[in-house]
């Protein structure tokens, strides 16, 4: 088998990031919330990413912040994927008027950029809570998952293995979850990686806009917002924080491409 370079590169990059996040739960070079030096120190041997306006170590804060961003991204994509994939699977499997209606509605909603949709939902729910941010972004991502999974499930449902499973007396839930779902992963997993990336980017944008942020456990987007005031005196603050987001989205994107490629070559 040909080696899948895209998948390998993505996995290596993401592992580096993930390792930094896991380590940050146990140890960071400095306490991310405490004064570790004078304010706005440029990068040096003791503070490799420099310090922020409160003299806190930016590297330690990026490690912590990446964890927050990853968590919010994962929670958001879980909300969107679980609801969206179930909806898509059920409508594809049972079909009928409800399927037609839901898909029309879906088409109308997917025309709207997800960040606009999330902005509208969060302004209804209340823009002060991170949980509302996760919910509104999650809802905004449901339609795209529903569409992908509907296509995949309706292709699989007429396959022989499904028919034979039904003849052997398997129930609908079992057929959907145990028999069909594993066969759709090739399509669903890249959709999940794309959804995760959109979630991370959307979360960063929303935090940057000051919506749905909490000063406890600041995410990378929140830190970028804070860094903007110091672009003149401390550009490294924004640059390193932003690069951490880029690394996360880039590596997950490569993994998604890699999975898609491995499907094509099989």
């Amino acid at each position: 088998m040909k080696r899948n370079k895209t998948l390998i590169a993505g996995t290596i990059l993401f592992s580096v990031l993930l390792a930094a996040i896991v380590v940050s739960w146990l140890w960071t070079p400095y306490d991310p919330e405490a004064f570790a030096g004078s304010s706005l120190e440029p990068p040096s041997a003791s503070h490799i990413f420099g310090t922020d306006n409160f003299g806190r170590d930016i590297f330690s804060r990026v490690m912590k912040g990446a964890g927050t961003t990853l968590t919010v991204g994962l929670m958001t994509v879980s909300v969107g994927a679980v609801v969206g994939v179930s909806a898509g699977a059920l409508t594809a499997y049972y079909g009928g008027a409800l399927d037609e209606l839901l898909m029309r509605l879906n088409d109308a909603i997917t025309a709207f950029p997800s960040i606009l949709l999330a902005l509208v939902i969060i302004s209804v729910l209340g823009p002060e809570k991170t949980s509302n941010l996760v919910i509104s972004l999650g809802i905004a991502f449901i339609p795209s998952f529903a569409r992908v999974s509907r296509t995949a499930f309706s292709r699989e449902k007429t396959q022989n293995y499904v028919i034979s499973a039904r003849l052997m007396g398997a129930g609908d839930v079992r057929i959907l979850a145990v028999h069909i779902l594993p066969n759709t992963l090739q399509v669903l997993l890249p959709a999940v990686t794309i959804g995760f990336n959109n979630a991370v980017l959307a979360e960063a944008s929303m935090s940057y806009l000051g919506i749905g942020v909490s000063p406890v456990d600041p995410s990378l987007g929140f830190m970028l917002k804070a860094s903007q005031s110091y672009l003149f005196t401390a550009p490294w603050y924004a640059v390193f924080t932003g690069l951490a987001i880029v690394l996360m989205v880039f590596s997950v994107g490569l993994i998604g491409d890699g999975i898609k490629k491995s499907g094509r070559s099989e």
Partner: protein
Amino acid sequence: MKFAAKKLASLALTMLIVTAMTFLAFSLISGDPASTMLGTNAAPEQVEALRDELGLNKPVHQRYFEWIKGFFTGDLGNSYKYRNQSVTSLIAPRLGVTLELSALSFVLIILISLPLGVIAAGAKSRFYSVFRSALNRLCMAVPSFFIGLLVTWIFGITLKWFSHGAFVPWSVSPAASLLYLFYPAVCIAVPRIAMTVNMLSSTVEAELKKDYARTVRSRGAGSSRLLFVHILKNSLTPIVTFLGQTAAEIIAASVVIEQVFVVPGLGRFLVSSISYRDYPVVEAIVVLLALWVVLASTAADLINFGVDPRLRRGAKG
């Protein structure tokens, strides 16, 4: 004409659904604006008086129809935050700024990505195609506001080519206005140029493999004539559809980019209105943005119908 009428009817239907959902969501879930505005210490009579003033005591369907009528008459009530100013007078100038920014971004995207995408498809080297997809990935991984921060830092602070935050309105000086908006427009355009080039060159590559392309070449047409006359014409439909989606995304990106460059547009106003819970303003902006998105896709459909005879034949049968 039948096709156009059908598209316009579906546009109207979509807008009806969007406005109804927006209106219901804001009037049912958002609580009582009168008591929010007056605070917790307000007397019940005061709250009741304000509810009357804001027209909140009328039944929901009546308020909905009055609100819809307001989009045509220009009377959308007053803002909750700026009590003496009408929603229309607050939104109109900001809409102009956002339209200017979006138009500029759109022009940049088309001017740069159309030739680049076609040329990129003609280039055959393997290194180049790897480079292209890596660049595309990277551009999609960078949040647009991070590009905005980098552009501010490099061109605004270090090189001093523009002065950050000093937006000039079109009415004062169109040239200075466009010059300032050029930087945010670039930030909006860059990721989309990458995507458009990628999409365009894969479409063109697919067309190049078709029989007619070989025929044209064998009849002695040069490769630039083949690419820009024959191939481009045949790949127009997916490109127009894609650009329609891009137009919708531009408006979403401008919400964030306006914040970075302190551009007093619709997006920046939407964000501050959400924070102040200024619902009449938020609702109006949401409907305008939705209209923009729907118009963009309808326009793309209509253009495709105009340029592609295959679609016309399909519509008749």
